[in-house]
């Protein structure tokens, strides 16, 4: 027998369609525990979410991570600096090149070596290309999470143009391992700049497509507006970074605000923010940042300085003792390495600060009170890579 609770003022219109419902009586609902994942199409990898539900509403959510933990921080202590560069490549596998850069910079800073300007320009261009590739996948895949399959194919197709550019330079589509301590492995191939310009035009077209197909779509707006709102200060206290934080109105981009690195100071570009902090805002910010990255790449290709691509470094890399913290603005957020060297050929300790780990750690707070279908859009809009969570 369901207890009658007259103190609950229930809108009778809710019951108009339910002929057999007792008017004025609210059914008691019990909690249900639902385990999403670790293998679930909407989680982008082996992220498991244990959610306690009251009907469709989430009472509590507990992400379970570690299914892909590879122990990189331990492994770095058994490897030389160049070997660690290949290792950190695999943290965020969608933008591997961007992972290499802060680690190589950390070693260079400890050694007092500076890569030549041409190398820094090419590094910047490849970092931004990695960002474009990562974001194009997001822009397409986000459509899939709300039931639109076409943008996904567009996203994969357009990302391919960018991956081809990266492959042309580095030989690898996903794991370039192109950075060397002191510079780059090789120079750009002949004719690359022209190819790059035409690919960038295609990417700009793709951005327009995504704007029309996804952002202007009323169904997409309904599914993402006011869903999963992260207030900026709460996001920051959880360590949420990158586009996720800028979508919450915090105007903070390490490319502009951090310690100067790469060639960003020479470029004309803009940091985009959105005040809403919801899933829609996160999509919007990433779309604008993709266009901004295209602008940057075009400037870099036009203004590429001539000169060598490697500084003078000893054949066997020994890094002077010391400690350094280097963080960069990666596609998924702040990526950083705290490197402790004791003067050997390998690091004594490397703390890897990966963006997705902190971005996902806000989920218990964020998912409380939302509805089951919104879990999917919120997860997708936070945009994480499992390797970047589990390291």
């Amino acid at each position, binding site marked *: 027998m369901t207890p009658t609770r007259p103190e609950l003022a229930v809108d009778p219109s809710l019951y108009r369609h339910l002929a057999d419902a007792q008017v004025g009586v609210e059914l008691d609902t019990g909690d249900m525990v639902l385990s999403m994942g670790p293998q679930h199409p909407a989680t982008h990898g082996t992220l498991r979410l244990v959610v306690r539900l009251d009907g469709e509403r989430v009472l509590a959510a507990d992400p379970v991570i570690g299914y892909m933990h590879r122990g990189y921080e331990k492994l770095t202590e058994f490897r030389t600096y160049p070997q660690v560069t290949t290792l950190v490549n695999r943290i965020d596998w969608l933008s591997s090149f961007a992972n290499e850069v802060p680690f190589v910079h950390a070693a260079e800073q400890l050694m007092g070596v500076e890569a030549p300007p041409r190398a820094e320009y090419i590094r910047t261009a490849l970092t931004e290309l990695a960002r474009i590739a990562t974001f194009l996948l997001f822009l397409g895949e986000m459509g899939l999470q709300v039931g639109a399959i076409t943008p996904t194919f567009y996203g994969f197709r357009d990302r391919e143009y960018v991956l081809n550019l990266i492959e042309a330079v580095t030989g690898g589509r996903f794991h370039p391992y192109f950075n060397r301590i002191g510079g780059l492995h090789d120079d750009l191939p002949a004719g690359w700049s022209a190819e790059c310009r035409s690919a960038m035009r295609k990417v700009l077209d793709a951005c327009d497509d995504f704007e029309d197909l996804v952002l202007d779509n009323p169904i997409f707006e309904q599914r993402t507006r006011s869903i999963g709102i992260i207030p900026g200060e709460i996001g920051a206290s959880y360590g949420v970074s990158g586009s996720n934080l800028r979508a919450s109105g915090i105007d903070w981009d390490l490319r502009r605000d951090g310690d100067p690195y790469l060639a960003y100071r020479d470029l004309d570009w803009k940091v985009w923010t959105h005040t809403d902090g919801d899933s829609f805002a996160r999509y919007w910010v990433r779309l604008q940042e993709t266009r901004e990255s295209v602008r940057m790449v075009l400037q870099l290709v036009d203004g590429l300085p001539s000169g060598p691509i490697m500084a003078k470094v000893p054949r066997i890399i020994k890094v002077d003792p010391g*400690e350094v913290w280097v963080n960069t603005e990666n596609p998924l957020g702040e990526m950083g390495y705290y490197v402790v060297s004791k003067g050997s050929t390998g690091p004594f300790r490397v703390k890897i600060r990966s963006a997705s780990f902190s971005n996902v750690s806000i989920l218990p707070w964020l998912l409380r009170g939302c509805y089951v279908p919104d879990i999917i859009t919120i997860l997708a809009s936070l945009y994480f890579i499992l390797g970047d969570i589990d390291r």
Partner: protein
Amino acid sequence: LPDERPAGAQAVAGTGEETEAGDALLASPPLPEREAGLLSRMEADLGSGLVEHGNACGGLVVRISPDAWRRAGEVARDKLECNYLSFLSGIDWAPAEGFRGDDQGDASTPPQPADTEFGVAGSAGRFQVLARVASTGRHWGLTLKCDVDEADPRAESWVPVYPGAEWHERECWEMYGIVFDGHPALRHLYLPAGFEGHPLRKDFPLLAREVKPWPGVVGVEPMPDEGAADSEGGGA
């Protein structure tokens, strides 16, 4: 200032040979102006809770006594406007077992000093908690280290200060065995429940290397169409 460090400690940009007393010489270059300002504000609020400070390639590192750890987080958040928690982790300063570069152990692993050497801003013992906070508005940040007792590794939890510390402290607890007082639920994060040992401690062996030594020279395995005898330099 009179220099009391041992001879040889001066060569900061040396060739890597002068690694002895590395902890002392690292603190030597003066801090940039902004970092010096952050330090003086930390010192004003923490007093003797701030044990030592150092300079890590231009970045400020402060060492905090265990009883002032949470207060240091509050000072960083409220006084220095560091609203953003970048990470919280640990560090084990013990010399690594088995691969010290003498003829023992896995020779392919980079040799590390056989003696305990503490890093920037020093340490009171083997374990330290390491954290990085930053200000999204003022664009500055600092690294904090907290001394931890080796026999009973404990630190105050930062969860009341930065809610994002919850996962970081769970990771630090399972990887180093440092207990965080005041943490809501210290349970395994990456490792399966019931895992024994603390993998990031230096005395925890990397079993993969124990079982099969790293191939020090690559390319020695013959290609399918090569004879086993012609294993070296067959490529070119």
